[in-house]
């Protein structure tokens, strides 16, 4: 664990006020999955939504630049890769380290078939939003059910 309590610091320059959620503090480098193994910590966390036309995948990736992010689709799987370097300036001392750094890769199965050609990804203020248009066949799967009265 790289997180060091600020109270351990010989300088003891800082003391955190808000201790309510201190148990949640647990900064660590991003786990780089070993070859063939899946990362145990799922990063980034994903929120996935859909409407009639699209599937939307959203991830919080603050400080990750566009050039270091890679979004790809293979079959029904969406993969997001990226990295963030957090280098300590020369002569500086780290007093608290919670932000994740390193490389990550995450793959999720998508709920429907996607029109890969029209996928768009946007990064704004550290939030990545991937818009995945559903393929025609996936949209056509929605079958309207009518009552027997209407049908007869």
């Amino acid at each position, binding site marked *: 664990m790289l997180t060091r309590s600020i109270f351990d610091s010989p300088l003891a320059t800082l*003391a955190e006020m808000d201790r309510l959620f201190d148990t949640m503090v647990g900064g660590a480098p991003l786990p780089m999955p070993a070859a063939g193994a899946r990362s145990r910590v799922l990063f980034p966390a994903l929120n996935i939504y859909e*409407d009639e036309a699209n599937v*939307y995948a959203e991830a919080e990736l603050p400080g990750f630049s566009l050039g270091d992010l890679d979004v790809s689709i293979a079959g029904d799987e969406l993969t997001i890769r990226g990295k963030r370097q957090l280098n300590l300036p020369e002569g*500086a001392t780290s007093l608290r380290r919670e932000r994740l750094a390193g490389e990550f890769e995450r793959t999720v199965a998508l709920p429907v078939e996607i029109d890969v050609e029209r996928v768009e990804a946007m990064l*704004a203020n550290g939030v990545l939003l991937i818009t995945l248009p559903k393929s025609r066949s996936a949209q056509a799967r929605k079958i309207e059910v009518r009552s027997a009265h209407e049908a007869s």
Partner: protein
Amino acid sequence: MTNTSNLDRCQTGQVAVRRPGTMQARSDWTYRPHVDIIDADAAIEVYADLPGATGESIDVSFEQGILTIEARVQPRTRESWHRVVNEFGVGNFHRRFQIDAPVDADHVVADYNEGVLKVTLPKAREAQRRRIPVKA
């Protein structure tokens, strides 16, 4: 809120450091951002991950040794979107630290870029390390 009127309009760039005052009411959920704190000799630097905020939605204050970071984050989803997977919540950010090192409070600066807030708290002169040459 005259205190925040001079906050930068851009999504990136300088964030004004607020003078003592109050913050307007926030929405329901508040999250605790991950931070790194660095002692860079001449200054204490605080980096906070605040994804989804904007320069104008961030409020930084330094008062009596206490650094407060707050950010209002607007919902990003549309009503027509149905949730399929939900692994993280979206809401405001809040965190406070007591900075014991003497800080030059008039020269605290903050800027926000790519979802990361950087607050630079210059140490007061007397707190800066002085290198004393040792004669042989």
